[in-house]
């Protein structure tokens, strides 16, 4: 077939332009004003690279390429149009797809080249396949937990860490054997199978609260495996893209771990749900103050500044649009309303901001923890909707608490605290929240969406009559 092939050097130059566009794309993500331009730069870079590759001289047949591109597009379109609450599981699924691609290419490259694979090449190829395989099943498991197909509770058993580490050690041993003698083609399937199992075992003990960290970590692995693939294929563009993705995932994992006051190893090797029993025992008959929507609305209506603290409970109750109406109602009265976003609010980094932006709440009213914490002492009302552990003052004051040291939103410094909550059940960490027993705290028991609706009605009635 006579294809309009272009010179290899030209393709390399196009790849170089693509790499530059990718870096610009991430740079423009720094602010919401320029972020969409960032997406366009990324799209342009991708388009250029794919077109240049299609003109590569070595391609002898386009049939399968065309079919696969069309099929991938057909799968990709619905994945790009999921609901915003489903973005975390979609992201986990896309990490799985990325890792699948990398593992498949790695496998094909091995069988094409074996037994003549230089040691360095075999080492990066092993890294590509091991990281790719464990990220594939790990991400599928994470997606399953987030979609609630799989149980979200951490599942633990005795000796779990020993089993997991042994699996990983065996996979590495197989890789070493292959580096020493790449001709052992029979060993290669083991190097895929063991990490596949490890990926499952790695996510089994991880609970819902740790999902933001785990997704970030899987993001990092997916990036590193792609970079390893770049070494195997000697593709500098892929190395750059993989390194960018890997460092992005790594930074986000660090931010998430810090926000939960935990180390990577702690997330991976110690299921969080374990510690609950010790703290639950201390609970005596302490009293909480309840309030009706009418009483709460009267206080809110008289306030000058209100900070709303949303948690994942708000998204589960689909309350963000009611919250938007509530925000409008208060703002119309001249009340300053802002939102305090904890780094781990939601199911993945930044998830809460997306949910609130979807409800048309202006992004300059969404403040992260460091920006809002100094503001709480001057705040009249802190209204907590569906957040729990991230507001627990025990993290500051009680060294015996399992969440001690975790950075929290200092809502207890506000003049009045209101908590919309279904009942007194504890949050993810399984511990009691001391905030609920403070004198300044009013508990507003009910469904988030319904209660915010009640508050709205009371506010409207008050101003109307």
């Amino acid at each position, binding site marked *: 077939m006579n294809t309009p092939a272009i010179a290899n050097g030209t393709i390399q130059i196009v790849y170089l332009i693509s790499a530059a566009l990718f870096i610009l*794309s991430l740079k423009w993500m720094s602010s*919401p004003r320029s972020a969409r331009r960032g997406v366009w730069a990324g799209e342009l870079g991708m388009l250029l690279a794919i077109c240049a590759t299609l003109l590569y001289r070595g391609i002898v047949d386009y049939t399968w390429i065309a079919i696969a591109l069309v099929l991938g597009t057909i799968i*990709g379109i619905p994945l790009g149009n999921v609901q915003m609450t489903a973005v975390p599981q979609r992201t986990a699924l896309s990490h799985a797809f990325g890792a699948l691609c990398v593992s498949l290419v790695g496998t094909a490259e091995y069988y094409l080249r074996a037994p003549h694979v230089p040691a360095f090449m075999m080492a990066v190829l092993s890294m590509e396949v091991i990281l790719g395989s464990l990220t594939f099943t790990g991400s599928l498991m994470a997606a399953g937990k987030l979609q609630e197909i799989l149980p979200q509770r951490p599942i633990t058993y005795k000796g779990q860490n020993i089993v997991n580490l042994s699996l990983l050690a065996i996979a590495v041993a197989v890789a070493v054997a292959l580096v020493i003698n790449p001709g052992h083609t029979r060993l290669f399937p083991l190097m895929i199978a063991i990490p596949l199992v490890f990926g499952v075992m790695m996510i089994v003990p991880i609970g819902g609260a740790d999902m933001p960290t785990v997704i970030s970590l899987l993001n990092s692995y997916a990036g590193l495996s792609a970079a390893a693939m770049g070494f195997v294929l000697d593709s500098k563009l892929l190395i750059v893209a993989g*390194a960018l993705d890997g460092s992005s995932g790594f930074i986000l994992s660090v931010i998430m771990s810090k926000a939960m006051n935990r180390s990577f190893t702690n997330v991976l090797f110690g299921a969080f749900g374990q510690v609950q029993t010790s703290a639950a025992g201390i609970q005596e008959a302490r009293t909480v103050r309840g309030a009706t929507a009418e009483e709460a609305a009267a206080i809110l209506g008289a306030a000058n500044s209100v900070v709303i603290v949303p948690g994942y409970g708000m998204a589960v109750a689909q309350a963000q649009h009611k919250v938007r109406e509530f925000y409008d109602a208060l703002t119309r009265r001249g009340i300053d309303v802002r939102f305090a976003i904890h780094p781990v609010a939601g199911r*993945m980094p930044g998830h809460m901001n997306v949910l609130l932006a979807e409800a048309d709440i*202006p992004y300059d009213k969404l403040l992260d923890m460091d920006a809002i914490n100094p503001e709480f002492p001057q705040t009249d009302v802190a209204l907590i909707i569906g957040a729990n552990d991230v507001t627990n003052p025990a993290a500051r004051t009680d060294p015996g608490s399992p969440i001690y040291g975790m950075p929290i939103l200092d809502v207890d410094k506000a003049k009045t605290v209101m908590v919309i909550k279904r009942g007194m059940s504890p949050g993810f960490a399984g511990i009691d929240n001391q905030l609920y027993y403070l004198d300044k705290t009013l508990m507003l028991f009910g469904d988030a969406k319904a209660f915010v609706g009640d508050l709205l009605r009371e506010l409207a009635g008050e101003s109307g009559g």
Partner: protein
Amino acid sequence: MGQIDNLYIFILAAFVGFEVIRRVSPLLHTPLMSLTNALDAIAVVGAIILAGEHKTTLATALGALAIVAATSNVVGGFIITDRMLKMFKSSKPKKP
């Protein structure tokens, strides 16, 4: 010594990544992740060559599957990132 060059590129790109991504506002961490995921799917170029060179049936089949997986990330990743970013609006009027 091509692989040494590649190691240099990897290290430098990782540093660029750290510096650039550190500056991304926490507001945009979710779209950041879906964007980097889409960019990561540039792995599709390797899969295209693999499927197109037709060296063995196995390589072609694995390459084609890999194209499907990566393309769905490219398409889905860019669509959802743009959908999310479109929703972020400021309460202040836009500067020209």
